[in-house]
């Protein structure tokens, strides 16, 4: 039981950190793209296309980058929780950016122009736009967390599923199933399902707030 709790907490910590990191740059990138239509025209379809990239592909790319012979091998991040954080942050960046872009575009068209017309400086307008679109932006962040928590490829390939160190819910479920230990796999699956259901409820609540 203690191990299950440890795995659940580690999963939330790792995916939560990845989500915070990815949100920081993704929301800023989304805002910059809203303000630069020239850049957003080619970049947004590209980011939207990357939302569905298989997690094992991202895992493989990161493995090649972080392995000893790879260009970032000197960081010695492979098979560490930090590697999973980086991998999941990369994985969910296109998702958070493209969803936040849609939300911020709508908000900019209403509130950004309004703020500028009332004499706001660019920074003040950005603050108003983000404040007015907080429920939508928060929904993008929650979607990112949900994707990070439920992915397997990155956690397995760059985390290595090391017991007590990098084992998270999805890698633990995969391991237990391969061992034929369905009891633990089912309990972990139920917990994961419960967390994802809570996230879904949060998204619906945020959706209502937006309306």
């Amino acid at each position: 039981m203690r191990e299950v709790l440890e795995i659940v907490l580690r999963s939330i910590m790792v995916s939560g950190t990845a989500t915070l990191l990815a949100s920081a740059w993704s929301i800023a990138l989304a805002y910059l793209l809203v303000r630069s239509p020239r850049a957003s025209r080619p970049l947004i379809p590209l980011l939207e296309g990357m939302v569905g990239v298989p997690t094992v592909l991202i895992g493989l790319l990161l493995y090649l980058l972080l392995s000893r012979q790879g260009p970032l091998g000197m960081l010695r991040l492979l098979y560490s929780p930090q590697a999973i954080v980086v991998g999941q942050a990369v994985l969910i960046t296109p998702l958070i950016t493209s969803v936040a872009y849609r939300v911020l575009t709508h908000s900019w068209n209403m509130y950004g122009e309004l703020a500028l017309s009332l004499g706001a400086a660019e920074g003040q307008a950005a603050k108003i736009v983000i404040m007015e679109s907080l429920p939508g932006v928060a929904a993008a962040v929650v979607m990112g967390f949900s994707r990070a928590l439920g992915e397997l490829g990155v956690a397995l390939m760059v985390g290595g599923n090391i017991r007590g160190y990098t084992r998270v819910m999805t890698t633990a479920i995969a391991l237990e199933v391969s061992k034929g230990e369905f009891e633990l796999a089912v309990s972990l699956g139920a917990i994961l399902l419960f967390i994802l259901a809570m996230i879904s409820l949060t998204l619906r609540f945020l959706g209502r707030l937006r309306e």
Partner: protein
Amino acid sequence: MKGVELKGVWFRYPGSKDWALRGVNLEIRQGEVLALVGPNGSGKTTILKLAGGLYRPSRGEIMFWGSNIWEMNGSKRLELRRMVVYVHEKPILLRGSALDNVAFAPILRGVPKEEAVRRAERLLRDSGAANLSGKDREEMSAGEAQVVSILRAVAAGPEILLLDEPTAHLDREKRNILIGLIGRLRSEGRGIAIATHDHLLALRTADKAVIIENGTVESIGDPSEILDCC
């Protein structure tokens, strides 16, 4: 020139091949009320947004008090941009009450919150809209929201006010509030440009009317003369 001047302005929306404006020359002066009339899609809103410094012209110059706004550095441009306020046709209110919204404009310009709230209360009262003060944006009708968005623009203290279809959602009572407000602002020496289909409003408030068609200025003159023919 004390006000905003559009000099040979051409404008095309990003991604569009068609010109929204073609060589527009127009002056919006302090102490004068200008009515822009013309059919939907003729370019009235585009002219107001360019005059408000919200859009950059594809060709031509937008002069604010004699200086090209798009050749200024950031802080100087902001200073000049703050002399002109554009009010959208569709009223857009921020979260909070009417009072919060009206106080928002001076707060944005650095006025301390208490002073901004006092100013907003006074403005709502003097304009006959004090009953809206505590109403939340969710509780307001379109007409009430329109009045609040216009008062918020006035609270910003602009030298030139640009009103886009200001009577679109107004009943007679609120229309009278607006007409009174326009008269008061003009007497204070402020300039107002109104894009409108409402010829009666143009006839009652404007010193000059401008007929816009297909992105060009067709004619400028006394409203009672040129609007009779439309």
